[in-house]
């Protein structure tokens, strides 16, 4: 076996050195009736060439990966500068462990410190952790944190938060006594409804909104923060399309108390849904309630600056069942990718990408809305995603668009909302050329004609 350095001869010598005659004897402490008598029924070994060929063949069956795509809804296709993958592929980063030994982990620790800083700058918050699994689990952790801080059990959420995020929160809070309560979206604007906000009361731990929301509409976060704070509740803002931070006012500047986001947009491939990276940021006063790892500045005896995992007493390996979260392994390397992406794009680049996304989406939305039979049901301002109402069932229409026009035109909302059979969600990024957008518009037109 090529990954095991010791030859069979060396292994025989080592067995002899520890007083054994055979490899079987290594397992003498396992009761005999538990030992497998036959080989595992897993595949027989294949070579590098065979693996590459079979993997390529399997990947080729993912026909959607080859087509121009307007799918977003929580996973976004953005351009990733070549150096991102190059730098995260350095052995020193990707084959390192969690930086528990700071003297020989300063590369990872400094990168995380930069990541935490960037997340604070983007979200407008004071403190950010070293990452969560993804946006959905970060939101679940934010809800649990709000319960700990306020000691209140009711959490109100906009129903225009990503449906899968809401399902994840449902799972996390089901044994926690938290009433996770969805309120309606305004049919005209696409934003959280005024009636919904009236259910905020002095028992409410937090109000949860996503902005831009699942339908692409930008919520009035400042007004929502005021409404939440008026009853002593926290405002939790979730962001699935993190490129929007380059254009939209930060949730922190609008008064949010906890901001969670999916950081996949920052140079990370969509990779069928993972690994992604959850961003988690909050106010200084809640720093000791934050879940997950934190890196802080420190000095050694000679006064040299270094970085170290800190405030660890919040975590499971110390506080066990009273920890702020059970998380241990996070998304370190993906956080590094996001860090490299953000530093490469920099202050100007992120704003330019965000503006291009918004411009291209505006162009695409306008072109589609001009088509006979198509409309845009929501009036609120949007970033790079928008809902289109088709004159026919959206699922069938998109399926034909894929097979006949070789374009993935977006997400049929019937996947999540049975009452929206004709609606589909379109996402446009800087990677979608005008030619692709025009082809989408023409394709829709021809299929309906």
């Amino acid at each position, binding site marked *: 076996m090529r990954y095991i350095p010791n030859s069979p001869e060396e292994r025989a010598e080592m067995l002899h050195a520890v007083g054994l005659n055979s490899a079987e004897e290594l397992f003498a402490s396992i009761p005999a009736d538990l030992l497998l008598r036959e080989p595992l029924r897993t595949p027989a070994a294949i070579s590098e060439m065979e693996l590459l060929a079979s993997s390529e063949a399997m990947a080729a069956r993912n026909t959607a990966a080859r087509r121009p795509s307007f799918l977003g809804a929580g996973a976004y296709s953005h351009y990733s500068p070549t150096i991102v993958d190059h730098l995260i592929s350095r052995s020193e980063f990707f084959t390192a462990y969690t930086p528990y030994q700071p003297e020989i982990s300063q590369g990872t620790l400094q990168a995380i410190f930069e990541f935490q800083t960037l997340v604070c700058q983007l979200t407008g918050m004071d403190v950010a952790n070293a990452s969560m699994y993804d946006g959905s689990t970060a939101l679940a952790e934010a809800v649990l944190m709000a319960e700990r801080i306020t000691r209140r059990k009711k959490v109100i959420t906009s129903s225009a938060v990503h449906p899968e995020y809401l399902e994840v929160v449902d799972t996390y809070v089901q044994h926690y006594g938290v009433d996770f309560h969805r309120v309606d979206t305004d049919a005209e604007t696409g934003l959280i409804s005024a009636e919904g906000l009236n259910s905020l009361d002095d028992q409410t731990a937090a109000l949860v909104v996503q902005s831009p929301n699942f339908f692409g509409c930008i919520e009035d976060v400042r007004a929502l923060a005021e409404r939440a704070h008026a009853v002593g509740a926290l405002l939790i803002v979730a962001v699935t399309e993190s490129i929007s931070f380059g254009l939209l006012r930060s949730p922190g500047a609008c008064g949010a108390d906890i901001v969670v986001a999916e950081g996949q947009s920052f140079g990370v491939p969509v990779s069928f849904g993972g690994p992604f990276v959850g961003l988690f940021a909050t106010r200084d006063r809640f720093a*000791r309630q934050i879940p997950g790892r934190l890196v802080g500045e420190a000095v050694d005896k000679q006064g040299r600056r270094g970085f170290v995992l800190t405030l*660890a*007493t919040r975590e499971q390996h*110390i*506080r066990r069942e009273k920890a702020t979260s059970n998380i241990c392994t996070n998304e370190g390397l993906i956080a590094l990718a996001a860090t490299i992406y953000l530093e490469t794009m920099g202050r100007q680049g992120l704003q330019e990408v965000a503006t291009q996304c918004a411009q291209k989406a505006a162009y695409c939305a306008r072109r589609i809305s001009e088509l006979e039979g198509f409309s845009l049901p929501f009036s609120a301002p949007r970033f790079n995603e928008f809902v289109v109402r088709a004159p026919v069932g959206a699922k069938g229409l998109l399926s034909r668009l894929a097979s006949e026009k070789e374009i993935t035109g977006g997400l049929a909302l019937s996947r999540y909302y049975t009452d929206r059979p004709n609606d589909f969600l379109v996402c446009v990024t800087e990677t979608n050329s005008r030619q692709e957008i025009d082809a989408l518009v023409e394709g829709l037109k021809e299929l309906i004609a």
Partner: protein
Amino acid sequence: MANVPEDLHYSKDHEWIRVEGDIGTIGITDHAQHSLGDVVYVELPKTGETFAAHESFGSVESVKAVSEIFTPVGGSITEVNETLQDEPEKVNNDPYGEAWMIRIRMSNPGEVDSLLNAAEYEDFTKAEETE
């Protein structure tokens, strides 16, 4: 060797109490701060909160450990040492002085009688160590 002042009462949870009238001043012992190591954070209750004897009223954290602190007597909190927020290292430097943690109006001052005196506490810590 840990310092154990004569004029205080001690609990088996390693807290001390100084009694003046019906007010008790409470902190953790020198022995406790030694075994914790560098204290980095102290979490304390708010004035006005009430606790029963031996109930946890807060916690002390070192870099890699958290210990709950228990009040040796019951009562309501009249004062909290806010300076420990910014200077938790006082717990290491002056556990019986500047690092007092709370003042409590004792609901039953008789509870003090069941606590250890300095000599008893010293014996207790020695016995714990040899365990």
